[in-house]
């Protein structure tokens, strides 16, 4: 089998001393930022970007991917023990997970989450192996109209699925779209909003924006809240789940794997979306829905499985279509570009070592995380106790150095700081940063391909219904739009929001 031998080659590459070291480094850093509230995977991946400049491209992506799925494991720990989400995708675990912890079942919650994450990770990796090459072939048939409609669907999903009210998500999307128009007009080459500043001719750097919006604004937010984090849980309890636990949670873990893998593929998807949907589904199928909110294990195992599998399947659209579905993958997209590799339909054919090496590292990384999670839980509890003022000062320093090192340009530091302050103010208004960044990335993809399609079709909109792919995507987009305004679905959505 071609797939098997390729996979074996990838595993071998991932097992080289250097790559093994960077998988371990990636997942350990990921675990830690997952544990630490404030630092999520997106800013961390951005922070690590300069380190990857000197690495082999496969090793670079192995490191950054490890941080992402490592954070999915780590985030659970803070959510369960401290009732503070270590990162956004673990928000749902703050409810039932923390209830379990108060009942002396912290270990049980964390153990189930770790095993669920492991299984979900393997399922998503298997999909990456089996379907990504096929998806890549399919992606080659993606022309400008297909990309335009896909980006449109992505923009609609981003506005619909983000945390916060729809109105505020739409405002965020609008801000992202406007920011994206800064720089050269992609069709005519004329400058827009450059204000005579040469540094603005290419637009503002997306990595600097991400570092500011996610990293700096989060720190400002924490400082403003003067958040004190003190562990209230002394008794962690048994970490390894019993056979009965596993039987009771098998369904939740299985469903979580499928939901997470599927939602990772969607533009705007990823761990946050996966865990929210899994929580909703588990409550729906549960025989005892009244236990949800009072420490139901399935409310932890399902979502935690989903967020990890989603974090891995998000690599499918990046590696096959060149589409980063969320902020973390957008940074990884940038890392590949810096390495001189353009993610897109030809990536697997042109750079098989990157694709298969990263896939191999995901299997190894998930095994490492499972091993790390179970015995190291008490240790990670300590890390969450670093004084916030120390953590904040350190992170700001790292962000400034990181922003400067993107292009060796002080202008990007300014962009990062401005984005951080703006992001903080917007958060205070309840406007989430994620849709801004996603619209900032999807906007130019939509604009360029939309306008290019119209040039190719000589101005006829018929080009957008000329292939089965565009028709299916357009129907999906309209369905999402319709469901956003239908009262029944809107109520369901509001219920999920209320529980965030």
């Amino acid at each position: 089998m071609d797939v098997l031998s390729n996979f074996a080659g990838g595993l071998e590459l991932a097992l080289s001393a250097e790559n093994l070291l960077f998988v371990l480094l990636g997942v350990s850093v990921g675990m830690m930022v997952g544990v630490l509230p404030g630092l999520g995977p997106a800013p961390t991946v951005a922070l690590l970007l300069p380190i990857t400049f000197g690495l082999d491209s496969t090793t670079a992506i192995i490191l950054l991917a490890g941080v992402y799925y490592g954070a999915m494991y780590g985030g659970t720990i803070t959510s369960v023990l401290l009732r503070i989400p270590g990162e956004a995708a673990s928000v749902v675990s703050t409810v039932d997970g923390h209830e379990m912890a108060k009942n002396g079942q912290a270990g049980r919650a964390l153990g189930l989450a770790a095993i669920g994450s492991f299984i979900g990770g393997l399922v998503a990796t298997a999909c990456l192996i089996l379907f990504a090459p096929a998806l890549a072939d399919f992606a080659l048939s993606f022309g400008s109209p297909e990309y335009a409609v896909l980006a449109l669907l992505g923009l609609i999903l981003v506005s619909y699925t983000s945390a916060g009210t729809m109105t505020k998500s739409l405002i965020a999307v609008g801000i992202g779209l406007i920011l994206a128009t800064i720089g050269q007009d992609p069709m005519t080459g004329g400058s827009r909003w450059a204000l005579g500043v040469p540094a603005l001719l290419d637009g503002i750097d997306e990595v600097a924006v991400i570092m500011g919006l996610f990293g700096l604004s989060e720190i400002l937010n924490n400082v403003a809240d003067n958040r004190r984090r003190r562990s209230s849980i002394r008794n962690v309890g048994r970490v390894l789940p019993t056979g009965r636990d596993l039987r009771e949670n098998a369904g939740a873990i299985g469903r979580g794997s499928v939901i997470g893998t599927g939602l990772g593929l969607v533009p705007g998807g990823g761990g946050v979306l996966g865990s929210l949907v899994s929580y909703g589904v588990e409550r729906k199928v549960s025989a005892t829905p009244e236990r949800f909110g009072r420490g139901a294990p399935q409310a932890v195992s399902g979502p935690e499985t989903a967020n990890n599998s989603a974090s891995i399947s998000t690599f499918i659209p990046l590696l096959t279509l060149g589409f980063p579905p969320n902020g973390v993958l957008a940074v990884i997209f940038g890392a590949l570009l810096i390495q001189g590799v353009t993610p897109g339909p030809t990536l697997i054919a042109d750079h098989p070592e990157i694709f298969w090496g990263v896939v191999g590292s995901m299997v190894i990384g998930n095994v490492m995380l499972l091993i790390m999670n179970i015995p190291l839980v008490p240790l990670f509890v300590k890390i969450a106790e670093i004084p916030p003022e120390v953590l904040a000062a350190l992170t700001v320093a790292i962000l400034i150095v990181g922003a400067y090192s993107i292009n060796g340009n002080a202008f990007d530091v300014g962009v990062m700081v401005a984005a951080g302050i703006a992001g903080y103010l917007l958060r205070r208004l309840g406007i989430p940063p994620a849709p801004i960044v996603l619209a900032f990335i999807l906007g130019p993809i939509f604009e360029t391909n939309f306008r290019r399609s119209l040039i190719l079709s000589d101005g006829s909109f018929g080009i957008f219904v000329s292939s089965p792919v565009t028709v299916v995507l357009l129907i999906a987009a309209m369905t999402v739009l319709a469901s956003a305004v239908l009262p029944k679905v809107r109520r369901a959505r509001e219920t999920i929001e209320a529980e965030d």
Partner: protein
Amino acid sequence: MKFATVAAVGAAALVASCSALGSEGSSDYPSGSVSIIVPVPAGSSTDLSTRVVAPCLEEELGTSVVVENREGGSGAVGNGVFAQAEADGYTLVSTTAANAALPPILEGNVGYTVDDFRPVGMIGVAPVVLLVPADSPFQSAEDLFAAAESGTVTVGVPGMTSVPGISVNALIDRTDLQIEPVPFDGNGGTMAALVSGEVQAGYMSADGGVALPRIESGEVRVLATAVTEPIETMPDVPTLESLGYSGLPYADSFWFLAAQPETPNEVVTTLEDAMETCMTSESIASELGEGVAPSSFIDGAEVKKRLEQAAGDYAESVG
């Protein structure tokens, strides 16, 4: 991988050693490290070829040579930093003619003009070529132009304000051809659209990274070149001029090393001598790739002449 390549290239250049010793100029230049600003991202063809030449310059000048990427503004940021630096030979730039000439034409005041470059030698050239996919019905440029007389032919270009974009617009202006230029994202995007059949033809520079490998593999065919002289490595490819389309803007994409105009003459001579030794070294020519490295050294004065001609042509076509 990129760094491994650069390191390997560096080692190769050292082993092959650019024989002659540094020039015996009376000045004590260089007495410190020299930095070469590359105004485009690391990994681009200008960047990579500069990194191929830098170790040899280091050897020739007897001092460390640091390649620094200062990207942004289609080259405007890095070129601006270079233009404002001290004219002492310690801050040089490696830039394409398009990056040197176009931002001031398109944007006005960007902190430099095309007169702010005193070239000391050519690094690489990539002629603009007209490409079709292997399975295209167009067997020759005549076929394609005949089709463009009776109906629309879509032609992918790597951006409207790229050299090919400007050149194709000039072609449309000067003829009745119904060519529809479609801008894509760089040479990579243009090539992808060409190979997948989204556009009927592509008009782009024959660069070593994207175009030359696919021309060699037969995925695409070269129908014509927009430069005035036939390409040395592709002597059978007709020029557009020979097909009766003359008066087109300068269509050789080229990149060169430059100092500031006020740089002392002896410093410029030292640099030019070093460049001549490096650019005529066989190991460097083979690292740069056949069809990219000039077959003989093109000195500063000649580069300057071509740069001025290109800038004049661009200004006329865009303005």
